[in-house]
């Protein structure tokens, strides 16, 4: 069968802005595959984005993130909102492959044209989301989705990347995982905006709630105090409470008190620095690929004529990336 010609990136960008699902889907693929074309496309989507509410859903494996996401889609649809979902599952560290199964829990929306569910594999990234997630959010935003739900891989301790992308981050916990909640203490417990105790019909749910509430008892004035909400996502219970808390958190964000502003500033700086580092790394890799000195140095090292430390300094110096004067380091000894 002859295939239609591949759409150009221009066409994909224009299609996405029109709200065309196929353009948006292909654009996310280009972003996910790390194509250089993605960068320009994302810049061009910027003026058309910024209106979507981005919600992060994170928590340990099996806590009910996908089922809760399904409930949140339903509520959003009932209030007439269009929805994008990015569901992240882990890639195999051995083969690089992945089984992406989150969307099974959201099957009832499979034919809803206003719900766009996309599965992403972590592809070796360890922050709970993927490098493409930011771009994929922008695509869904630009195509006109009112709410974008980002479900992370099952996380434990410090996978807090999602909190830098989402306007509100929901941490899903379950009863009986006392130790796991302890483990979450240092990372996600500090940055989650809402805490959901899912499967609240299980014994010890009250203990989990009490434990979490205790953690947030001493939140300083002016800071957001994360509510702890009981839910049974499987039975659609507690979902209204969660939406109310999301609205309250959005109000808190809009008030933009000093604590909120400081947090957003810090998050943005971390992100920008990460992007700059990636850019530098790419540029450096390109320069090193074109650096004939490397092969010569390898041979010298192998021949015992040079040592790897001096060779590194020499090459970096040649690229103009290394200060010759190392007296400071020397005297520090």
């Amino acid at each position: 069968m002859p295939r239609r010609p591949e759409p150009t990136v221009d066409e994909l960008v224009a299609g996405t802005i029109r709200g065309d699902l196929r353009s948006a889907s292909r654009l996310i693929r280009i972003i996910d595959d790390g194509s250089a074309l993605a960068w320009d496309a994302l810049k061009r989507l910027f003026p058309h984005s910024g209106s979507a509410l981005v919600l992060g859903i994170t928590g340990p494996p099996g806590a009910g993130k996908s089922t809760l996401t399904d409930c949140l889609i339903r509520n959003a649809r009932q209030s007439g909102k269009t929805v994008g979902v990015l569901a992240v599952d882990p890639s195999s560290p051995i083969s690089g492959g992945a089984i992406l199964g989150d969307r099974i829990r959201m099957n009832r929306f499979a034919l809803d044209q206003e719900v766009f569910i996309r599965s992403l594999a972590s592809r070796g990234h360890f922050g709970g989301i993927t490098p493409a997630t930011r771009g994929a959010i922008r695509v869904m935003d630009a195509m006109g989705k009112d709410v974008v739900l980002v479900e992370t891989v099952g996380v434990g301790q410090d996978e807090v990347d999602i909190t830098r992308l989402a306007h509100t981050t929901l941490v899903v916990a379950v009863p009986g995982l006392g130790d796991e909640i302890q483990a979450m203490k240092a990372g996600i417990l500090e940055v989650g905006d809402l805490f959901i105790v899912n499967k609240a019909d299980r014994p010890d749910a009250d203990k989990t709630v009490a434990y979490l509430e205790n953690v947030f008892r001493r939140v300083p004035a002016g800071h957001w105090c994360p509510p702890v909400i009981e839910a049974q996502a499987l039975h659609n219970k507690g979902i209204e409470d969660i939406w109310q808390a999301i609205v309250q958190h959005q109000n808190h964000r809009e008030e933009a008190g000093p604590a909120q502003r400081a947090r957003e500033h810090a998050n943005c700086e971390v992100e920008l620095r990460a992007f700059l580092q990636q850019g530098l790394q790419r540029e450096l890799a390109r320069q090193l690929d074109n650096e004939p000195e490397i092969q010569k140095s390898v041979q010298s090292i192998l021949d015992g004529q040079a040592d790897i430390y001096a060779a590194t300094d020499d090459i970096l110096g040649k690229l103009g990336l290394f200060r010759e004067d190392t007296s400071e380091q020397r005297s520090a000894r």
Partner: protein
Amino acid sequence: MNPIRVLVGVLGMDQHELGAVGIAKMLRDQGMEVIYTGCFNTPETIVQTAIEEDADVIGISSHSWEYLYYTPELLELLKQNDLDVPVVLGGSVITEEDAGKMLDKGVAAVFGSGSVVTDMIDTVRNLAARAATS
């Protein structure tokens, strides 16, 4: 090398999921990203999912007679949607005669009982490569 994305699912009321799970794991172990949709899919949900996930290949696992009806429907719907994603059909109940019928209707490959794993993997890989280059 960017991962191949394969949609794997079971159509209709067929509840025999083990084959689909086995295939999904096999493809995962070959470095592919498998969008696993489980049982109780319709041709409509498969087509919609293939679009949303930008799937390179659709794999249908079947262990009941239903594939005889649903697979042609799926092919027709793909055509209606102008979506050129190859469909691979697999399952122990597919007779040689019916396999021929399915291929005539436009299924890209059929794997019945006794199929060789490496053949299946190579087929998916080649179909995905064809999709990427042509």
